[in-house]
Structures are given as structure tokens and as C-alpha cells.
């Protein structure tokens, strides 16, 4: 009976935390936002050098051969420090897709380069200002070439490869495209410019098939379920950081002769933050278990983790501003960096409504076996 990370995994987390603090990840995030860059290249190179991009990549491909649990630990720290790097795109989404769906040839080609950072990947889904469905995809495949436009693609500006959700003859499919002159990549402004987002126009770009024809939508859902768990750890990290900020401020800031944290309005607000964070954390742990054991419960567990982590980070980042009062509304304080990132993370693999729907849909499909013995 163990719903906790191992000592080794916790050590990895604590090392990650120290590293990101030392490297002032949060300040770098502010600077990327201020200057509307797409990432912090130096931080990204250091992260690559530490081997984190290869955590899940088997040793035969030069990776660390570790598991999803290790990735969750790193994710929590990246979330806490708002690291302005393409880690989530390249690791949770792209690398995972290559590991799970790509041919041996592609793996041999790309996995070692993902470890060294020579290859950086992302995933292109959205085409319009609405929820993507198998029906509203218009990027098409003819032969092995991909044509059409994607928007809101994270990190495409520095990616070397992108997996594209396309409409093929037999339905939706995933295509692996190397970003070259057949792909016009343009930066798009977002509400959180500390993470770069891009549109891509594909003009007969070569695309290698991942998985089978017509299988793309199902593969995407599995990929998003996996990623949702790892993103929920980023959200946990962010939520914890904002709760810590708010708690600290409430202890330091005085009004009417006493710390504002001695007023129940603030106390109960912070207690509500703690409650939401704790629910999210426990659900994310369960999601991590389902992810790491390839459980049949992954879809429901991931949706549960995602929904509660989104609710937690949204609420915590929002009420952290409120706790800071006027200062919280200034550019100078860090509150807004988290408010932005919370919103970005609550959208990037689908909105709260989308994931609540996935959760209920998952419950309808399966009566989950009670893997949690004796409870």
C-alpha cells in the first residue's frame, strides 16, 4: 500500500527544485514575458544537459530509462518555477508519442537527439478558435504530404519536429513533420507570453505516419490523458507556489495593526486554497499511479487529476492576487505570472469543461475496477 513517491524520486524533485531556484527560473520567466521571447535558451540548454529530456527515454537510446513518476516530480518543479522552456511540448507530448507510436526507425533517429536537445518536438492540434474534434480538422494528408494551418502550437518556433493531427483518407491520423521551409511558423501573442505559441502553415510538408491510418484521434486522446497527468503536476507546483506566496504575504502585511493573515476572510481564503490543492495533489498522485502502471483507469484518473489540478491552480493564482491587494495587480509583483500560467495550463490540453466531459464519459464507459484495495 503506497500512494507516494519513492525516496529516489523525491530526491530528484528536490534536486530539480534547487537547480531551478539557483537558476532563477521564475525571474527568467518574467524576462521572457517582458521581452516576448519564446523561451529562455540558456535554461533550456542546462535542462537538456541535466538529462531531464531523456528521463523516459530508454537507455538504449541514450536516455535515463526512468519512468513517468520521475517525470511527474520534475513537472511539479517546472510548474512551481514557471520555467520558460519547451519541456512539456517536447517531453510530455512529442517524446511520449515517439516512444509509444513511432516505428523503430524513427525512434532510432529521434530519441537520441531528443536526449541531446538536437531535436525538440511539439504537437499541433488546434486549427480554429474552438474545441478541436475529429470532425473539424482541416489539415489534410495527401500521400505523405501535409497541408493546411494549425494555430496555438506551443514552442513551434524552436521545435525541429512537430506531430500534426491531420485528416487522412481513413480518418484522423498523426503525422510526424520535420519543420523546414515547407512549414511557415509565425509567433502568436498570448495571455502568457512567457511560453511561446505559434501558427504553422504546412505547404505539402513531408509527414511520416505515427500509428495507423484513421487511428489518430484515439492515439491523441491517449497522449492527452498521459500529458494531463504530467501537466497536473505542473499545476500542483504552481498552486503550491501561489499558496506559499499568499501565506507569506498574509503573515508579513499588516492592516489595522495586525497581520492580514489573522483575519478570517484571509484565513479561510487560504484554507480554501489548501483544500483545493490537497484534493488536486491526491488525485494527481493517483493519476501518476495510473500513468506509471498503464492502468485501464488512466482515462478517468487523468481527467480527475486534470480537473482538480486546474481548479486548484486557477483558484490559488486568482486568490493570491486578491490576497496581495493592490500590489497583486502590479506588473512588478509575481502574482500575475502565475495567474497567466494557470490560465495557459488550464487550456493547453483542453479546457475544464472538456476534461469534465472526458471524466463523465470515462465513467460511462467503464465501471472502474476498484484497484484501491480495501477502501
Amino acid at each position, binding site marked *: *500500500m503506497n*500512494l507516494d*513517491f519513492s525516496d529516489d524520486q523525491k530526491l530528484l524533485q528536490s534536486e530539480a527544485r534547487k537547480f531551478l531556484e539557483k537558476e532563477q527560473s521564475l525571474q527568467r520567466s518574467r524576462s521572457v514575458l517582458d521581452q516576448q521571447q519564446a523561451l529562455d535558451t540558456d535554461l533550456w540548454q542546462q535542462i537538456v544537459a541535466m538529462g531531464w529530456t531523456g528521463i523516459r527515454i530508454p537507455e538504449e537510446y541514450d536516455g535515463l530509462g526512468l519512468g513517468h513518476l520521475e517525470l511527474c516530480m520534475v513537472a511539479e518543479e517546472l510548474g512551481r518555477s514557471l520555467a520558460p522552456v519547451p519541456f512539456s511540448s517536447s517531453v510530455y507530448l512529442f517524446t511520449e508519442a515517439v516512444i509509444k507510436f513511432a516505428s523503430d526507425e524513427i525512434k532510432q533517429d529521434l530519441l537520441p537527439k531528443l536526449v541531446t536537445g538536437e531535436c525538440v518536438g511539439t504537437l499541433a492540434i488546434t486549427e480554429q478558435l474552438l474545441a478541436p474534434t475529429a470532425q473539424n480538422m482541416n489539415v489534410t494528408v495527401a500521400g505523405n504530404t501535409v497541408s493546411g494551418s494549425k494555430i496555438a502550437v506551443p514552442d513551434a518556433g524552436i521545435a525541429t519536429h512537430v506531430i500534426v493531427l491531420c485528416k487522412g483518407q481513413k480518418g484522423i491520423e498523426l503525422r510526424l513533420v520535420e519543420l523546414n521551409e515547407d512549414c511557415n511558423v509565425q509567433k502568436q501573442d498570448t495571455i502568457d507570453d512567457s511560453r511561446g505559441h505559434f501558427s504553422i502553415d504546412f505547404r505539402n510538408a513531408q509527414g511520416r505516419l505515427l500509428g495507423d491510418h484513421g487511428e489518430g484521434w484515439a492515439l491523441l486522446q491517449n497522449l492527452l490523458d498521459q500529458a494531463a497527468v504530467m501537466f497536473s503536476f505542473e499545476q500542483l507546483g504552481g498552486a503550491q507556489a501561489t499558496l506559499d506566496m499568499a501565506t507569506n504575504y498574509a503573515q508579513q502585511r499588516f492592516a489595522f495593526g495586525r497581520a492580514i493573515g489573522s483575519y478570517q476572510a484571509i*484565513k479561510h481564503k*487560504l484554507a480554501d486554497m*489548501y483544500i483545493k490543492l490537497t484534493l488536486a495533489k491526491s488525485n494527481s498522485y*493517483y493519476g501518476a499511479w495510473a500513468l506509471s502502471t498503464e492502468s485501464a483507469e488512466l482515462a478517468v484518473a487523468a*481527467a480527475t487529476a486534470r480537473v482538480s489540478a486546474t481548479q486548484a491552480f486557477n483558484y490559488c493564482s486568482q486568490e493570491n492576487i486578491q490576497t496581495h491587494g493592490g500590489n497583486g495587480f502590479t506588473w512588478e509583483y509575481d502574482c500575475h505570472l502565475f495567474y497567466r500560467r494557470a490560465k495557459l495550463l488550464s487550456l493547453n490540453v483542453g479546457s475544464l469543461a472538456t476534461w469534465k466531459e472526458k471524466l463523465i464519459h470515462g*465513467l460511462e464507459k467503464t465501471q472502474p475496477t476498484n484497484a*484501491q484495495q480495501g477502501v
Partner: protein
Amino acid sequence: MNFNDTEQQAQFRAKCSAWLKNNAQLTSQTSNHNPHGKAGSPEFLDASRIWQKKKFDAGWAMLHWPKIYGGLEASPLERIIWGQEEAKFNVPRGVYEIGLGMAGPVMMQYATEQQKQRYLPPMAAGEEIWCQLFSEPSAGSDVAGLRSKAVKDGDDWIINGQKVWTSGAQFCDYGIIVVRHDPNLDKHAGMTFFFVDMKSPGIDIKPIKQITGGSSFNEVYFNDVRIPDSQRLGAVGDGWRVAITTLMNERLAVGDANGVDAAEAFEWAKGQDDHGQALIENRAVRESIADWYCQASGLKNTKLRTMSALSKGDTPGPEASITKVVSANKLQAIGNFGIDSLDMAGMLKTELSDVHDFHNAWLGSAGLRIAGGTDEILKNIIAERVLGLPQDPRADKGLAFKDIPSGS
């Protein structure tokens, strides 16, 4: 991460399970869900006594206790495993929880060895039932505001006052009680703790009718009730210190609010009609059930995290402190959802057990948000003890109890 027992744990679980199978019926195999009679009835009390005695004779009653008092010296995790296994069986519950959970630890810590040998085994065996006498009409959330008086008279203390919210007082043999021995002292310094024979002359017990119509609680009046000084637990003036641990345990450990949950709401919505469609097709309903499912799942996994810590021999974190406030509010929301789903007929009491459950959730949750620490008190505790925020300014500090403003 895994949900498997260690080999040792699995062995222990098998032992529990085997004994239970020989001595009780699995709920999943019971057709009569109420075989022990209505809670509070004489039959129920009898069934409870019999079950408790059976457990005691086999060592399960207080398995974490020293063997000398009838326990097995089991580890916290073994205790949890036993609890998980017993939970699967249809056995009478509720009569002994407070006595064993609150009076037991206090007696264990503060009673003399002689008293322990006299009182603990019959307590565990269910032969003597214990209750708790802390709350008073003017001391609810502020338990230390209690006013019941103890005056020393020779080797006895004479108790006068009124206690309230005492579960099971009418059938209890003993109670633990905290009273004020000196109103001239500071609020917390003026209290002393005893155990009392509930059959003593001068004790008068009156049931409290709740808004549910039931009466699980009592008012207990003390008129010149004598307690021998030998039944004092802790020093004179130590009453609050003795009370507080027990009380905080109650406030933090009160578990899930019992009743309908996300799973029942989901099943109900699949069957209930909403303008010609299944109610579960309604996106607003789907979103609400998703919220409740995430809360229920979050509480369940929080419990697993606590158990994981125990399992490793670590001290659990403060995460369990969220349980009651989340589950009681969830219960109220689900009760309202279920009733509202019947539209104009929602007010009817029917034979349908689902409707009955929703009505119970709606009424009962209003009490669960209060009992064992109100939402507001529990959030204070989270803010102050978990997050380390400063206390509210205390208007009752540094004053003699009698000088503290009380509004009356």
C-alpha cells in the same frame, strides 16, 4: 507506487478477513441491510454489545491496545487494515466509537494503573459504555467557555451545570467530563477533568430532538453530583490540556460525512428522466457530478496518502484535515441536486430509497457541517495549524474567566 500489501500486511489482512467471515456477514451478501434493528433501539444496543464482546474475546476490539488491557499491540497500519476489512461486513456500528475513541485514550494516559485494569477491559469488551461530556449550551465552538462548576468537598467534588450534545448518554455507564473548578482563574487554567459514573444521583438526561426528527444527542444536567477525587484525570487545573488532544483528534479525525456521494448521484442521473432524456445527458448535471467525483476521489486518495505514510512508519501530513469540511458540503450539494431532480415532486417522502437518501443528505448535511467542528472552525484550524497563520486576536486572553465578555 502500488496498492498492494506487503507480505506481512497481506497475512494480517487474511487473518482479519478469516475471523470476520466466521463471525459476521459480508454486506455484499446481505439482503437485509438493517438486521440489527433501528439505531438507538434496545435490539440495536444488544446486537452492538454482542458484536463488541465477540471482537474483544478474539482480541480485535482495541487491537492497538496493550495486551494487558485486552489488545494485540497492533501497529497503526494493522489497525487500518482491520478497519478496512470490518467495513466490508454488516455489523452494528456507532455505540462504542466515542467511548473507545475519546475516553479510551484519556484513561490510558491519565488513569492510575489500578483504574486502567478496572475500566479499560470492560470498556473494550463493550460491557461498559462511555460517553463524552464537553460541550455546553454557551460553549460550542469555544469549548473552553464551559461553565459547569466543580467545588471540592472533602474527598469529593460536587458538580453543577449542564452539558449538551452528548451521544448515547441515556445508555452509558461512564463519561469523561471537563468542568470549571475556579472561575477566577484564566479561562484555560480554571478547568479540571474527571470521569464520572453516569448512574450517579443528580444526573438528569434529556434527549435533544434534531431537525431530522431523530435524537442521537442529549442534554445532561448535573445537580450536586458527587465525583470522588480519585476519578480526577490529570492535575487540578489541567483539564484543558487533557481535553484538548482528544478534542483536536475528534475535529481532525472526523471522517467522511456518510451518505450519498458522486457515485450515487451518477447512478441516479443515469436513471432519472429530464424532459424526455436521461438526466445524465444534461451538461450542467455532468459538470456537477464531475466536481463531486473529483472531491470524492480526492478525499479517498488523501486517505490513501495518509495510510501510505503510516505504512512506511512516517507521521502522516495534515492532509486529512480537509475531509469533513469537503465531504459535508459535498453531501449538502448532492442532497439538493437529488431533490431538485424530481422537480415539483421533490418534496415528497417516498418509498424510493434513493429519494430517502437525498432527503437525508439534505437535512443531515446541515448538521454535519456543524458537528465535530463547524466549517468555520475547521478552516481556522487549517489556516492556523497547517499554514501557520496568526490567531485571531483573543478577547478572552489574560482575563479571569468570570470577567470574559459573554453577551449575557
